[in-house]
């Protein structure tokens, strides 16, 4: 079996009195797509910057491709490709010039550079714009060029820090296709941070959930979702008497009830069977229900259960990707 591509041991980073990352242990296999999921400010980018040698860990150790990121950053750099959160490009170069410069700095000979530039261009499909200055590119094109620059030296390990943030759905889907192709065809290990649930769900072999610098859960998306039960009934309420929660909890088949703002999340083994009893219990206890929805669990439910809060900025992503499946909905109170 191959050695792990990435290992961290109690890795931590402090800024002043604030621990952005606080004791994270990871082991990521070679060829794996690892999704690192968390809201803004959770510590995702800080961990990436430590692993790609831009930041020194305050505590703990990190190994990438078998090399210690603190002791041998120069060896780590030869093995990794990095696309940071904001596309880091020089607007006054053409796309081709930027890729060629990147390839030169990785020591590629002229014939290798020409071949690799041609190859990554088939991957990211920038077309004739590759010979235009980058300041003329759209946001999506810049992202794709950034990815191409990260791939120019055919790295073993690719770090993608929120690669689809700010992209339209079409560009996002294109990046997903590229990521999958890299893993399947090249065996590239991909460490992907994201705040989009469906991105982690769709792409990642395993997902790590980070909150306030701590790794709070890790596993395959399906395994993580199983931890919160089979089905989730979401009741949107305008009034919720204190007795309503107890009434719902007392129902047969209900595993857990989480209340947050105007939402009541009822976790049940058989959601369809529990819908009517839940509706009746809420109605009977005086709650005013605006809508009642049945769906399968999402990673957001996992996050909510673990941290007590939703991931930020996921609503639009959820609606665009339609990741909530099996969603018969009843409007209004029963």
């Amino acid at each position, binding site marked *: 079996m191959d050695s792990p591509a990435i290992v961290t041991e109690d890795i931590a980073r402090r800024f002043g009195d604030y621990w952005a990352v606080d004791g994270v242990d990871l082991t990521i296999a070679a060829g794996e797509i690892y999704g690192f999921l968390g809201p803004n400010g959770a510590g995702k980018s800080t961990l990436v910057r430590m692993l790609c040698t*831009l930041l020194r860990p305050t505590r703990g150790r990190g190994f990438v491709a078998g090399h210690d990121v603190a002791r041998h950053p120069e060896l780590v750099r030869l093995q*990794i490709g990095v696309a940071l959160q904001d596309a*880091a490009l*020089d607007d006054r170069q053409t796309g081709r010039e930027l890729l060629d*410069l990147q390839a030169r700095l*990785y*020591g590629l000979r002229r014939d290798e550079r020409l071949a690799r530039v041609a190859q990554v261009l088939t991957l990211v499909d920038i077309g004739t714009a590759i010979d235009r200055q980058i300041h003329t590119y759209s946001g999506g094109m810049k992202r794709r060029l950034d990815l191409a620059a990260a791939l120019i030296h055919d790295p073993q390990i690719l770090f993608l820090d929120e690669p689809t943030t700010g992209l339209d759905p079409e560009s996002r889907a294109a990046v997903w296709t590229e990521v999958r192709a890299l893993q399947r065809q090249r065996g590239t290990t991909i460490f992907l941070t994201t705040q989009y649930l469906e991105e982690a769900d769709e792409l990642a072999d395993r997902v790590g959930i980070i909150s306030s610098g701590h790794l709070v859960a890790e596993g395959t998306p399906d395994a993580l979702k199983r931890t919160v039960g089979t089905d989730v009934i979401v009741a949107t309420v305008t009034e919720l008497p204190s007795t309503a929660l107890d009434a719902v909890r007392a129902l047969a088949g209900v595993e857990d009830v989480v209340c947050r703002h105007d939402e009541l999340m009822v976790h049940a083994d058989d959601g369809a069977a529990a819908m009517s009893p839940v509706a009746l219990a809420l109605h009977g206890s005086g709650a005013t229900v605006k809508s009642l929805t049945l769906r399968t669990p999402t990673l957001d439910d996992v996050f909510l259960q673990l941290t007590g809060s939703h991931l930020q900025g996921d609503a639009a992503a959820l609606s665009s990707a339609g990741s909530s499946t099996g969603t018969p909905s009843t409007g209004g109170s029963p």
Partner: protein
Amino acid sequence: MTDVLTVRSPVAVQARPAGFLVDLISVAQRAVRQIPREPASVVPALIVPIFFYVLNIGALSKVTGAAAHIDFKSFELPVAVVFAVTGVSRASSLVTDIQNGYFDRLTITPVRRLPLLLGLMMADLALVMALAVPVLLVGLGLGVHFRTGVPGMVLFVVLSGIWGLVFTGLPYAIALKTGNPGAVNASFVLFFPITFLSTTFVPKSALEGWLRTVATYNPMTYILFGLRALVSEPWSVATATAVGDAVLAVGAFGLVSISLALLALRGRVRRP
């Protein structure tokens, strides 16, 4: 976007350190490519010195020239060239790189750290020498005669260019230390005392009081003296001495400015 992707590599590539020279040339070439794409940062550096050269000759030639018994066109040509080459650098671009993350992208590659600065300075040297030439040609067109001939002219341009190069150490130090475009722009303020508290408009013998004292310790005094010697004096021991003093002044200034820039580079690339 293509639906079927082909990422299998027909050419097996292995990332490796490119070597100092390749790093240096690569960074310098990128910087040189940027220059014509940002004409707004270059054109004023050419027009302003020529404008003031012509203006000063017209306004002060009779007064200062007659009083000091000098050929004011020849006397002022080094000032115009120094105006053209001083403060022109890629420091603002470097700050942009720092701010938009491109500098980080470069530092994640195996590139050696020193070429990240020296490559920019190489481009600056090429640019300031290119800027010195048209100013020199204007001077020749206005009737300036180089008594040291073509070799003197070449040395004049080279010495001016190296002065322009070592001055860039200051804006680069500020750029690397602060990553702040405002601070880099403000570094141009350093240009004024260095340039004007010197023998810019009159010979040192005509300076009095505190200004004479300041000018004595200002390297610009010796640089202008050496450049003027190349214009107005024939080759001699005195000319060589004046040029030698100018080289020493440039070297002393460069020792400080380049050291500051290198220290700032070290601080910038040292992982926090």
